[in-house]
């Protein structure tokens, strides 16, 4: 008979070291013979690169943090205060005066640049932690979901988030909380009471993704305030996941900052972890001619991905795709460059290896005029082919006391860069 008091023993054992790494990584099967298959087969198999997951220090840290947060939350459920809180939550549902007794468990923020793999890391960590699925108890009869993941609504709506939590719980354990809340036309306060009760009974760790949505929304503070109350009334651990802009939001006041102590990650540095990822991903080659990964290629990949894992994956995948389709069948800097130029054009401003493009100092002209001007310039350059063009322009600028940059822009294609 599974009792609430013994629930901690029902959790999968915490892993560490090599065992953890091995459990976290995902390496699809790869056979060298695939390179001899026809184009269609190789293109299909190429998508396996997206399934590769190489755990990093970030993944390990996230796993430990989430596991400990879950354990802390689970322990709270076995205390006498949890019983007291259940009765208080009922008062909240009945729109009576109530108070938080059980107190918060653990709340943390995991912030990181988009694409570095935090959602994937969290997903891998959750899959390990929730290895045994929903835990069923006999005394009291109940179900406990180790981790519930919800997305912060785009408009930071408190009601929507609360309903989403109920819906997710219903999905996992087959209950009717969402339906009952809708039927009862519950107010936000009632909903908060319900979600507190449901979380206390059924949820170990609540993960709220895309928390940066609170930054640009007028309801943002209200939503965070609600989450604070939820922590106090349910005793569960809450993990918020978002981009670095949410850090700025949480830093704006002490009570918010206190609730968001956690992990912050940037793009990877050029280090052993990065090289390891490149090694693993590069080994998944589906082009006919195999190439070794050299230091030069690794450096090139670093410069052209800005240390962001998702960019590395896109580069390697698209480079191979282009190589297979245009017949070059080689994964080298040339194919990588093609992928970078053709497939990642929109990201250039955010990656731009070694050079950072600055905004133009001259007035921004209309696009159509600019294109027309560019074409005229191109014609002019082709016609004159004068070596002393720049000298002539400099002399003209001195003579007329005009801005040399403007003059150059009128006659040539100019790009301003930071020094």
């Amino acid at each position: 008979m599974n009792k609430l008091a013994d629930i901690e023993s029902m959790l999968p054992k915490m892993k560490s070291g090599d065992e953890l790494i091995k459990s976290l990584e995902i390496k699809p099967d790869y056979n060298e013979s695939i390179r001899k298959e026809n184009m269609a087969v190789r293109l299909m198999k190429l998508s396996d690169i997206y399934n590769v997951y190489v755990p990093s220090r970030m993944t390990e840290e996230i796993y430990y943090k989430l596991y400990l947060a879950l354990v802390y939350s689970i322990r709270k459920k076995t205390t006498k205060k949890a019983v007291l809180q259940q009765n208080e939550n009922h008062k909240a549902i009945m729109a009576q005066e109530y108070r938080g007794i059980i107190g918060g468990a653990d709340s943390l923020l995991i912030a990181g640049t988009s694409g570095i793999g935090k959602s994937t890391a969290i997903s891998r960590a959750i899959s390990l932690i929730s290895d045994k699925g929903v835990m069923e108890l006999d005394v009291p009869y109940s179900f406990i979901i180790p981790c519930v993941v919800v997305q912060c609504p785009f408009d930071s709506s408190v009601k929507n988030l609360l309903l989403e939590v109920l819906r997710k719980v219903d999905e996992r354990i087959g209950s009717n909380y969402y339906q009952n809340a809708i039927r009862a036309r519950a107010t936000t306060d009632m909903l908060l009471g319900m979600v507190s009760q449901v979380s206390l009974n059924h949820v170990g760790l609540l993960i709220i993704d895309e928390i940066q949505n609170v930054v640009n929304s007028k309801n943002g503070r209200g939503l965070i305030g609600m989450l604070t109350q939820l922590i106090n009334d349910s005793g569960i651990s809450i993990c918020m996941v978002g981009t670095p802009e949410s850090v700025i939001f949480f830093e704006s006041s002490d009570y918010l900052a206190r609730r968001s102590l956690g992990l912050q990650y940037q793009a990877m540095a050029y280090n052993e972890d990065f090289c390891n990822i490149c090694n693993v991903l590069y080994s998944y080659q589906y082009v006919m001619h195999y190439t070794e990964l050299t230091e030069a290629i690794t450096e090139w990949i670093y410069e052209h991905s800005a240390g962001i894992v998702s960019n590395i994956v896109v580069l390697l995948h698209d480079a191979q795709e282009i190589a297979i389709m245009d017949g070059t069948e080689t994964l080298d800097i040339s194919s990588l460059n093609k992928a970078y130029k053709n497939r990642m054009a929109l990201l250039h401003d955010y990656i731009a290896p070694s050079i950072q493009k600055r905004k133009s100092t001259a007035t921004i002209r209309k696009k159509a005029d600019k294109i027309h001007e560019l074409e005229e310039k191109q014609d002019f350059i082709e016609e004159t082919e004068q070596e002393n063009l720049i000298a002539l322009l400099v002399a003209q600028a001195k003579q007329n006391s005009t801005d040399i940059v403007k003059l150059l822009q009128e006659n040539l294609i100019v790009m301003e860069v930071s020094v």
Partner: protein
Amino acid sequence: MITYFSEVYPDELLYSQLARCYVKAGYPAYIYMAEDFFQDKKVRPDIEFINTLTPAALQIVTKEMPMREIILKHTMFPYYGRFIEKERRDRAYQTLIGMKGNYNNLLPKVKSCRDRFLRYCPLCVKADRDKFGETFWHRNHQITGINVCPIHRCYLKNSEVVISAKASPILHHAEGIIPQKDNVEMVGNGIECEVSKYVVAVFQLDLDMDSDVNIGEFLHSRIIGTKYCSARGKKRYMELLHKDFMSYYERLSENRITELWQLQKIFTNDRSNFVEVCLLAYFLKVQVDDLVNMKVPDVPLDEIFDAEIKRLHDKGLKYPEIAKRMGMSYDSVKTIGNGRYGIYQHRKENPQKGGVRAKDWTKLDDEYLPLVQKAIQRIENDESSMPKKVTIIGIERDVGLPEGSMKKMPKCREEIKNHSIPQEQLWAKKVVWAVRKIQSRGQTLNWKHIRDLTNMRNENFQTCKPYLEMYADNEMVDGIKELL
């Protein structure tokens, strides 16, 4: 689906457990809990016993312990059913386990002009909150006739929850009703506490469902050898018993036994109120274990007495000497010795006088059995009118017997019982009959026509579907099932 059900506390009422579940499971309103747990969501939750649960709720409620144990340990059944006769107790017990039938008619419920409320002991409440974090409704505190907590020796207090058939259908959980701070009134009266302790001790012990010893018989066997009973053990000195009983319980705040006839009825098994029996047993210094596991001597004392007189007489002693030895009067000893004792007292029939003659029920039972069988056949095979249930009252009317006659005719009763069918089966029979009637009239076969003939509700129609095959062929059954 039910996804939360709180664990039960020791000596907690099932009603209390359901109330705590309602509070803790996150239901936004009572009706949603009622839909999940009760067959009829509008039913008023039974405080002392159990309502008909949905199959899902039944499975969860009986997960930790079987229903029979729940009835014995978490309802007031031991209070009402301990001292009634075995047959009635068994029927009430089976009715409760099956959650069908009206157990209220089988159990001796006390009717009072005063409202009854759920009660609690302020000190037990404090102890519960310290131990569990919350309090609950204890069974011990709901024993009518006891006003004192046996553990803390303080008076029990009434809550605001009235135990009434007119109360609104809602579950009241103790933690929300009982205040955090409460006055405690200690009892100065020793007898009040002792009685309370005794009654609760009897209440808590396991109920012997197999015991067929009547309480009257048992208590009579316990007054034998005391001043309240004759030497032979046949005659009770009720006046003396009543006088001493009332004097003993003079300081008891609630003693419903005020008249002699009330005490007498306990001995004749016509009165089996739990607390009244316990009061009498306590007065007679019956141990708790003896009262719970009632035993009577295999051979009645009067037979032993009579046998002893005969033995002494056969040995050669004269009646005066025997009378002196036995502590009885000469006349009584002589009457017993001559074998005339009992003839005058126990004559069942006096043919010289008028009045109602006692009937030979065994003979009547045999005589009416074939008539009953024919009546049953007529009812079962009658296709001209809507099918009816085979009931005792119906058969009594059919064969011309007065109502209630079948109580003393076990063979006829058994025959009727063998032919009685569950309600769902009867509905199926009605539906098939209605379909045949509609077809014979040439009307369109639809649900409306069936309902007009049978006056059945949709939900009843749905529950009778599994039985349709017993009365119709597959083709007809498929056609009927498609209707709704």
